[in-house]
């Protein structure tokens, strides 16, 4: 199969996270990142509802409704974990103590604007949760998303048309086709997924892409 599947995307993200990092994972593909921590590294996962040191999903039958993640799914706590209240949790987030946040996206702009919380439709019930706090406060924002929508529309665009989560907040984008960096000059293609050409990535992207290194033209 051409390109990366969801697991491969998550694994590719995990490879870029340094040892000892404090990491917050969004819902969806970002959650899979926890399964791909490189063998020689230790990440500490934070969930904004009050747990540092989040561990894997518990075995069926041993879920605790009072031990959940921000997506309200049952989780576990590793030895060395800590519980805290919401204001303390957002000291970690707003105060810039979390190293990496991995989030999904509806749209990302060339400048790193992110839209991932609302379609802005008149009858939609908007729900923001901690997304705006995370993008404003966490040191490095990584987006992992399919390159296009289910109907083939580009998600990486010149300007977001959906309501923003934050302006100029994204650092790097991982899709099923490529890895892209948000820079002052624009989006630079850092890596192509196996079997994917730069032309194909460009064709599925709503904004002109830059390349930095020769291998991106392969």
């Amino acid at each position, binding site marked *: 199969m051409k390109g990366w599947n969801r697991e491969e995307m998550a694994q590719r993200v995990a490879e870029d996270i340094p040892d000892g990092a404090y990491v917050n994972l969004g819902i969806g593909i970002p959650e899979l990142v926890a399964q791909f921590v490189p063998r020689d590294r230790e990440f500490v996962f934070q969930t904004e509802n009050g747990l540092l040191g989040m561990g894997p999903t518990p075995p069926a039958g041993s879920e*605790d*409704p*009072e031990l959940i993640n921000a997506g309200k799914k049952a989780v576990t706590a590793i030895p060395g974990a800590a*519980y805290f*209240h*919401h204001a303390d949790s957002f000291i970690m987030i707003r105060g810039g103590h979390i190293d990496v946040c991995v989030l999904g996206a509806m749209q990302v702009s060339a400048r790193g604007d992110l839209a991932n919380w609302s379609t802005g439709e008149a009858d939609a*019930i908007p729900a923001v*949760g901690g997304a705006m*706090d995370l993008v*404003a406060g966490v040191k490095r924002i990584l987006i992992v998303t399919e390159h296009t929508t289910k109907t083939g529309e580009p998600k990486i665009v010149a300007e977001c048309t959906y309501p923003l989560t934050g302006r100029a907040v994204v650092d790097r984008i991982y899709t099923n086709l490529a890895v892209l960096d948000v820079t002052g000059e624009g989006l630079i293609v850092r890596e192509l997924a196996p079997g994917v050409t730069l032309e194909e990535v460009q064709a599925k992207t709503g904004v002109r892409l830059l390349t930095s290194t020769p291998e991106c033209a392969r």
Partner: protein
Amino acid sequence: MIDKRAESAAAAVADVRHGATIMIGGFGEAGSPIELIHALIDAGPRHLTVISNNTGSGRVGLAALIARGQVRKMICSYPRSANSMVFPELHRRGEIELELVPQGTLAERIRCGGAGIPAFYTATAVGTVLAQGKELRRFDDSEYVMERGLRADFSLVKADRADRYGNLVYRRTARNFGPIMCTAATTTIVQVREMAEVGAIDPEHVVTPGIFVDRIVVIPEPQQESVLVKEGRCYP
């Protein structure tokens, strides 16, 4: 002798008046004081403003309070989730107002309300629709939005254990909004699973010091929202 135990959940919420502002703890079902909410449904005050992270699920707890038409306005960060139909329906019909607040800003607004801080600045939501109409200001070359402290007439909170002074400990991620909501209300009502003897909670481990707690209701085996929803229960 100080003893903050109330006779019952009904007695604890009996003086909640029409038009009151009420903070309700919990993140989803974790920490949601479902028995206190049900007592509030029985008591029947209307035109409430409720500050809570979510809007409940199914037709029990907070969702039931909303379904009964007792809530005029919700201040929350995430008003929809799996099994959450009540709020969306009423909101689409224009029967309930929504003030949407980013989760960290919501938490800090509550903490500031309890701490005597009328306003603070945050970078969260700058450049988004949730900062529209709010005061922006630059500090050290970055832009921030001013947010106001939040206070309530009552807070309804679920903790794990209390002593007669009102010292509280919580359980796991059910702690969430409880400790800050205890500080930000004129009257704080807490349901706990059990009472502890004075001195049984190590002073180093107290999460909410008793000064922030007014009334304690013991609910030894609290109901679990997700179980009630799965069973299709409806309160009352």
